[in-house]
């Protein structure tokens, strides 16, 4: 008999697991395939959860508004200890459902449009060139994370929002403390400092406006009463943290993946026009944002199972992007493949707002890195590269390189 209740039968695995190879899913995840498109897993607090691994099923679920992203719900699933006891603190955009989500997103989408992002490319290129100049001057060794992967998105999101880059050390550290905190007390402390900084910045900007997205939001939405100071501070915090925590990892893990696949890298170096295709395959293959957390608001029949109202649902971006039903030989990195419909940026109403900024950053950063330093190589063996834990954005903590 097929067991369709989450609370009966035993979970197949504790979730999440850490990767061992930085760019391959943990071995334990690949063994989950035998459970079909939805497997049962157990969270750190003992709560059972559905893990969605089928590409088609995951896309259907991420687009299904019966699944909630309301982090403020008292029994919203908790995947990492640091977010325990945070019930009631709803993060704008990522932690709310429609119609609130739509109201917030609509204020921001004109600023993240395809044309607008194309227009910021020269600025990103200038920053990337400067960072590479500095790296080459100091070389022939570097930590590619702190010297390159981190400042690229940090400079870009600061310029876009018009947040002073001179403060970047402060908010990068707090941001890292916030997403990497071990306890909710540590996370709260980092969050409090980030909040106070941005709250003060917005008040200063009200008196002395600049020319970024934040200033536009102050001049239009805040002035017209569509947003209050608290909501604008929270939106800015989400944009700032989301704007670099993910892209840092995508650049660093992207570079590492290319370094470990020299024949693929050579194809890119011979034909730099391939860069956007290479980036899409990297987004699929590396799946930096490993999973999405949801909670069912109603019963949902999917993949031969019944998700019941109140069930925890984890949508595995990594496993969806490695589903053999959608991608041939999915565990092979192949820059020639068509990686379309990958869910590296998610799917449904919460699909990444900054995806076209991220694409621009990745294409320029990785394209320029391997054009300017064609002899780049890893300075330590692959298994000595320290990597993030399974619940974090996936990527190297440090990436020692030489040339």
């Amino acid at each position, binding site marked *: 008999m097929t067991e369709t209740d989450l609370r009966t039968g035993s979970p197949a695995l504790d979730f999440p697991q850490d990767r061992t190879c930085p760019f391959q899913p943990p071995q334990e995840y690949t063994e989950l395939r035998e459970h079909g498109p939805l497997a049962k897993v157990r969270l750190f607090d003992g709560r059972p959860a559905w893990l969605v691994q089928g590409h088609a099923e995951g896309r259907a679920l991420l687009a299904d508004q019966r699944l909630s992203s309301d982090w403020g719900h008292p029994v919203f699933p908790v995947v990492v200890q640091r977010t325990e006891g945070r019930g009631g603190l709803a993060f704008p955009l990522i932690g709310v459902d429609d119609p609130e989500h739509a109201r917030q997103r609509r204020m921001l*989408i*004109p*600023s*993240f449009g*395809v044309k607008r992002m194309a227009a910021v490319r020269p600025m990103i290129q200038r920053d990337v060139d400067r960072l590479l100049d500095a790296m080459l001057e100091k070389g022939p060794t570097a930590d590619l994370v702190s010297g390159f992967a981190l400042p690229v998105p940090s400079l870009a999101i600061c310029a876009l929002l018009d947040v002073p880059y001179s403060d970047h050390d402060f908010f990068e550290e707090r941001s890292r403390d916030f997403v990497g905190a071990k306890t909710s007390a540590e996370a709260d402390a980092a969050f409090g400092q980030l909040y106070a900084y941005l709250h003060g910045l917005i008040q200063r900007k009200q008196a002395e406006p600049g020319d970024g997205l934040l200033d536009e939001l102050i001049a239009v939405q805040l002035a017209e009463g569509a947003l209050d100071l608290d909501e604008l501070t929270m939106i800015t915090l989400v944009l700032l943290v989301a704007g670099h925590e993910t892209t840092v990892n995508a650049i660093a893990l992207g570079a590492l993946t290319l370094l470990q696949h020299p024949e693929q890298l050579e194809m890119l170096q011979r034909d730099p026009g391939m860069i956007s295709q290479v980036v899409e395959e990297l987004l699929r293959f590396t799946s930096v944002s490993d999973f999405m957390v949801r909670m069912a608001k109603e019963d949902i029949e999917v993949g031969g199972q019944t998700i019941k109202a109140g069930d925890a649902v984890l949508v595995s971006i990594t496993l969806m992007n490695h589903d053999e039903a959608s991608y041939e030989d999915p565990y092979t990195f192949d820059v020639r493949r068509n990686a379309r*419909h990958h869910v590296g940026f998610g799917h449904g109403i919460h*699909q*990444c707002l900054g*995806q076209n900024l991220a694409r621009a950053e990745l294409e320029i950063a990785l394209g320029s890195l391997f054009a300017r330093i064609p002899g780049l190589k890893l300075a330590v063996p692959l298994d000595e590269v320290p990597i993030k834990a399974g619940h974090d954005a996936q990527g190297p903590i440090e990436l020692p390189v030489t040339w």
Partner: protein
Amino acid sequence: MDARETGSAPRITVDRDRCIGAGQCVLAAPEVFTQDDDGLVDLLPGHEDAAGDAHVRDVPMACPVQAVTISDG
């Protein structure tokens, strides 16, 4: 519903109420889709003959919120 559509078959229909401004349509088929000043999907003039194009055919799948549909008349 604020929908814009073509007059002849096959028809491309966009639903601007659903649109979240992800821009997947513009990336896939920039000759057919654009984003207006609000960042929302719009159809470009001259798109009427393009509904059979492979890139355009892919857009309903690429759109994260099913805001684009193609019907065969």
